[in-house]
């Protein structure tokens, strides 16, 4: 045994071996970090803020101008999807407002030519999840509960993870999200509430 230990010790004095060992350790650490980082649950969700075809600012519209969310996202209490406003809604104001600015000109020309405006989707759920805005909005839950402080975002980004644990934590204890005095004690925890 002693002989083997001695041999190993001798090898370790070899600078080349030391370099290889150190490099391997560093590489192993790097792999662990990389895998850990890339596999973190919210890796692809939180902070996603793609560039939009028109640099629409929620900070300006929902924040400074304090336009209510449902003025534009009028499906929120009437449909499963809140919906993105039709160009007509935008043009309601922008026929007269800031008509010289290039993005508004782009908007107006799209509207007049009957072209279509393709916004980049920011919030999305997997195909096996069936989320319905109606019960959440009619329960009085603020949009910001899931969408984050949209009124402060110049570029819309996903603020919450929108993972199942996120949904369930609120369904189990919705008090913080509900308006004071709400009669709702819990949200459903059935599989079929969201998956079918």
């Amino acid at each position, binding site marked *: 045994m002693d002989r083997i230990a001695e041999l190993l010790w001798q090898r370790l004095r070899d600078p080349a071996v030391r370099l290889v060992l150190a490099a391997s350790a560093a590489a192993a650490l790097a792999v662990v970090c*990389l895998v850990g980082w890339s596999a973190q649950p919210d890796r*692809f969700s939180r902070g996603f803020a793609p560039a939009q075809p028109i640099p629409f600012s929620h900070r300006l519209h929902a924040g400074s101008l304090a336009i209510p969310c449902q003025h534009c996202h009028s499906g929120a*209490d*009437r*449909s499963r999807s809140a919906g993105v406003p039709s160009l007509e809604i935008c043009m309601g104001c922008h026929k007269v407002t800031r008509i010289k600015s290039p993005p508004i000109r782009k908007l107006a020309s799209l509207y007049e030519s009957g072209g279509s405006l393709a916004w*980049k989707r920011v919030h*999305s759920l997997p195909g096996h999840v*069936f989320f319905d805005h109606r019960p959440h909005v009619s329960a009085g839950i603020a949009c910001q509960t899931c969408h984050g402080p949209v009124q402060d975002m110049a570029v819309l980004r996903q603020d919450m993870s929108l993972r199942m644990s996120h949904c369930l934590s609120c369904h189990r204890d919705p008090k913080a999200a509900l308006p004071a005095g709400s009669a709702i004690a819990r949200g459903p925890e059935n599989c079929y509430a969201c998956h079918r």
Partner: protein
Amino acid sequence: MAEPIEPDLSRREFLGVLGASAALAAGCSRPDRGEIVPFDKRPAGARPGNADLYASAFQEGLSAYGVLVKTREGRPIHVQGNDKHPSCAGKTSLRAMADIMGLYDPGRLRRPLVKGRPASWDQARGRLLSDLLGARAERRPVLLMTNALLSPTRRALVAALGKALPGLKHAVREPACGGAEAAALKACYGDARRPRLRLDRAKVMLALEVELLSGDRPEEIKGFAANRGEGSMSRLYAFEAGMSLTGANADHRVPWKPSRAAALGFALARALHQSGRPLPAGVADSVLAGFDLEALAKEQGADPALLRALAEDLKRAGSSALVVAGPALPPQAHAAAFLLNTMLGAEGSTVDASISPPAEELAGDEESSRFLLEAAQGRFAAAVFWGVNPAYAFPDAALWDSSAAAIPLKARIGRTLDETARACDIVLPEHHWLESWNDFEPSSDLLLLQQPAVAPLYDTRQGDDVLLDLLRGLGGGAPLDYRSYLMERWRREVQPASSLLPFERFWSSALHDGALRREAASRPPRRLDGAAVTKLARQTGAPAASGFELILSPGANVFDGRYADNGWLQELPDPVTKLSWGNAVCVSPADAVRLGLADGDIVELSAGGVEVELPAVVQPGQAPGTLGAALGYGRRAGSVAAGVGVNLFPMLAGSGAAGLLLPDTELQKTGCRTALPFIQRHHKMEGRDIARSITLAKSRQPRLTHSKDLATLYPPRKFPKHKWAMAVDLSLCTGCQACAVSCQSENNVPVVGAERVLEGREMHWLRVDRYYEGPAENPKVLLQPMMCQQCDDAPCETVCPVAATNHSDEGLNQMAYNRCVGTRYCANNCPYKVRRFNFFEYNAQTPESRRLAFNPEVTVRPRGVMEKCTFCVQRIQEAKAAARSAGRALRDGDIEPACAAACPAGAIVFGDLKDPASRVSRLAARGRGYRVLEELGVKPSVTYLADLSNPAGDRDAS
């Protein structure tokens, strides 16, 4: 149809992809999540995420139905009945629901073809128009062959075209409808209007070789169901050769040779006359002298007492009796039925001709043959085949070939490149009915409006628009499109002069409802021509032939072959034989023993010099000496239809004028065998009380179900808010399978194909089981819709190793596809065999266009996952959300699963057991309520109500 997918990634490629995706994941890019494209201007009422319903209408054969088309984001995903069509009241033909597949059929033509080459509409139209102009100049006739038009506006258009093109010969073909009934109506009443059968008014019904209760007769099923409960119970007698759903639901079914149906009718008339019912004017009693009930009973091996009871019942029911003869029967049998109805006073009561629209002149095989013979002699300058498919469905193929060769220009208006389109020079692709405008007149007090539910998917045009365009080209003044033509006619002829509404309001309200009730001009009651009946009665005699009597009927699902390209309808089994993907000839058990036949033996049928080989099925209840087979199979073209089953239209060439009945057919065993894709392979209940049937008298006795609670190891389940449950009344269910089609459409259920059905791997979430009880010569038939029973103590839940299936606190047995790892333990442990395993990537293989028919509210399941009925949980959630956003509580009836919504009989009721006043609670508490395999202690949520029968002589009944 899906084939097993070979993995298309080798291991090396897989590792490569894995490495590449790992590298991508480690990088800084985030996957794109797609785009959201909003409306430029949102139409009022259109809201992404919500379903829209459009009222429209569906036509097939000689019937039209009002339907509601459910669309999501602009694409039709489901069809259901429109309750503004009063006689169908929210129900429709199963083919109306299934034909949504036709809209998304990948085999649809996308542009016109001239001589097989893609062409523009201008080229195709120019070619056709110049030939028509040439024909007009030369005064040569032009042939227009269509299906039944059924639409007053379309009829006006064809008439206008006939004026602009004087040589136009219009032939209306419905190859599977038979002409005997129309011929008899014409002979006996002078008018071929088909009366409406009021089964809801009928107390005693006699069905002679007629299918009244199949999925394409919602009106009759609804009427029948009106009198099949404890409160009011009718009695149905069926005399038939093959086993039909009518026979299966009859209180008395008698195997009877079709050639003797007329004799039975006249013998009954004689018995009624002898007991004091007067004969109508012109019918001499001497003509009935030869028909004797006792002798007939002896000849057909029936119980004479039963025939006497039938005569007695009919007499007692009087104007509440109804006698119907089937389309395959010769005119004599129809005349006998007319005579009986007249003698009983049923005319005007259960047989209502007062609001029948004018009948269309159908060109039978004989008349069509004459046209084609003329064509073969080079008489026609051109021919337009619209909808009809004579290259497939015309019996005399040689005559079709020679006439097709002799017509200089053949044009086809149709949806796919089918047999006729292949034979034509110009092929004009047609809109699907969900892309079309039209009106239909199912009765003279009702007009249905058909409106597009989607913009045309391809560069197609409506057939009517093509004719309109030709009309304009021929110099007839006409508006630019058929919609304007339709509106103009409605403005002129439909809006009542007394109406104060502006036409636009009148039109949009009719369009919204999809139906317009009108004052029907009252017609004097029709009079039976006694002399004609006498003449037909004189022609009724015993058949001299020694061979089998073969009845050909339109396929229960594929009709005359026009729906053969529909995977849903191919996989939906025949409601009685339970054979999917093809047709077979039904042989009686006695004949099968005599000839040594078993299911799947290939036999050769020959009649009138035509020979056809097809597999045989031994059909319990089939009358000895008779055979039955379905038309509509054996298509040569079509991505789904080609090569499925055997084309039996050629057999009709041997039948001559007799229509769908071939009185002298030879059957020979060939010695070959084939495996038949049956959906149900075992036909007996083996002593277990699965589908129950009791007589009306017995139903008055106390409850028949197990009442004591069985011991259980599980703690009782608590349902704090709702407990969803279903009740299925087997007394109302006729086994038509409309529920199964509706379920398939609603729940994205895949089609697996014949090969997989042979392995027992069909995927239907809801099936209709059919059991035979009693002697094979004439068994009692029990029909039972079977879906997930949503057991409270579900045996599937306890064996799932990953808890993918578990129980909700609303009483649903939930299936979370994303958790399922595919062990199939659950299916193994399910006593009802309602769990279905997705063995292959059926959905991933679905062609792009067909995917548009998917319901976006239901997961499209991948391979390796178990799936089953969910009680349409998406509809439950939708109703809850809608009620909540309307600020009201959920009401009984708010939720209607697809099966219940489609059931013409109203046999399926869904609701909340926690609400003691709900319909389902009341039904579940009924005396004849029971749960299937209750003795297992699994506590199913589905209550079946035992079938009620009302046989003659049942004590203290009626």
